[in-house]
């Protein structure tokens, strides 16, 4: 599925929730189920410091050049949103990741979590995901040269 298809899927899923409680309970569940980043990667090199909650992020390219993200956070709601972001961006090509527009966050009513001034690490995490993608894209181009 393309990034946009997955986003639409998530938007559709969220449209079934009656109120914010169901939505947040779902996000919290997602957070609890997030496959964790390799323990050795949970180090300062992979840390994105938000003012309130911290995020650790790693990215690896698989054989076909698609990127796999793994991550963790100390806050469960942050983790739940990370799970959604990984569902959308993981296993996509660097190009697609770098040029993606993440409209779903806004559409499912979680915009406040991606406010620039909210400082929960999520904004910086998306930036970092795109930077990883650009780095792998660059690498791939170089090895093609």
């Amino acid at each position, binding site marked *: 599925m393309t990034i946009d298809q997955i986003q639409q899927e998530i938007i559709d899923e969220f449209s079934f929730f009656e109120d914010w409680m169901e939505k947040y309970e779902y996000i919290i569940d997602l957070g609890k189920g997030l496959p964790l980043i390799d323990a050795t990667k949970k180090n300062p090199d992979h840390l994105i410091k938000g003012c*309130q*909650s911290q995020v650790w992020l790693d990215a690896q390219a698989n054989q076909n050049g698609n990127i796999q993200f793994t991550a963790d956070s100390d*806050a469960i*709601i942050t983790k739940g949103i990370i799970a959604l972001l990984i569902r959308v961006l993981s296993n996509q090509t660097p190009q697609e990741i770098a040029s993606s527009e993440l409209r779903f966050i806004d559409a499912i009513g979680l915009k406040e979590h991606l406010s620039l001034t909210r400082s*929960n690490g999520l904004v910086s995490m998306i930036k970092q995901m795109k930077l990883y993608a650009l780095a792998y894209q660059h690498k791939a181009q170089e090895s093609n040269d």
Partner: protein
Amino acid sequence: MDLSTTHSGTNTFDPKAIRAQFPLLERDMNGKPLVFLDSAASSQKPQVVLDALNHYYTYLNANVHRGVYTLSQEATDAHEKGREQARAFLNARSNREVLFTRGTTEGINLIAQCYGQAFIKEGDEILISGMEHHSNIVPWQILADRTGAVIKVIPVLENGDLDMVAFDRLLTRKTKFVSVVHISNSLGTINPVKTIIEKAHAQNTPVLVDGAQATPHLKIDVQALDADFYVFSGHIIFGPTGIGTLSGKEKWLEAMPPYQGGGEMIKTVTFEKTTYNELHFKFEAGTPDISGSVGIGVAMEYTQQLGYEAMQKHEQDLLHYATEGLSQIEGLRIIGQAAHKASVVSFLIQGTHPYDVGTILDKLGIAVRTGHHCTQPLMDHFGIPGTIRASFAVYNNREDVERLVEGVQRATRMLL
């Protein structure tokens, strides 16, 4: 227009009437009636302060101090009335000892910079505490970097009190300045600043008191305290943003170099030689925040007229009610249980992150602060990433507490 008559300045303390004086508290948040429990970060403003600001801009606005025309004179009178209100509020000796700043942070920076420049040398020790706000840490670190002075820290006990035994040990001949918080914004601890000042003075060490959290709750008397410097922020004591007060002993203010250069703070300027104006002008370069001094003046008068005794009784009731209610919640741990505490409850719930709890409370219309509250070293000391903090002001009520307790219960159920 005498603004002091437009709100109930009488002796009866009516919490409901007081709450009604704060228009913002009528708004919703996320579709629920707002429960505002973040007054320690910034308080709401009574109508009388908003009226004063509006009155200033609508009838009195002009630049101050040098104007030959009546309007400028009236603006000056309004501005200087704010200073007199601040003097009376603090019981400072004279208006020369009362300066306006942008807030607590600027007040501390002013002293660290100017007192520091005049009196602090390499090897001198500056004594602060382990529960200081960043604003009472970083200015001293900058000064220490610049001069080679050394920062010493009074440790914090498990219950949130200062370790006064350690204080006695740390206060030595080398201690050239003490700067401590009156009431901790994270823990609520009311520190024994009078004792600290007495002991420091016994060896001629001056003391700055960070009163940011004290002024909305405690009667302050800088002469009774004998504080060398006392600083606080308008926005925490029901006043406007962008204005604060610094009260300092004249002997120090006279001996210190000026802070910033510019208009107002000079007597004469030539390119060869500039002479500085007298106090308070010397430390107030540039056009002052005139509406700010008007607003903070009215806010202080308003607070005084509420009456500290009745206010404290009301706030302590809320504090105990909240402490009791929250303590019932399994896994909830209150950080800061000093015997003398202002109406602040910091807590953590086992297995949850403050950010998560705060986020769910927000959805329930409840505004609390989460995080380190600009006291990272204190959080490090307790080995926690931060807390959830509910702070109660005079306009809160028992229903607010009940909504908080229910909200935390609900958040806990969702998160665990």
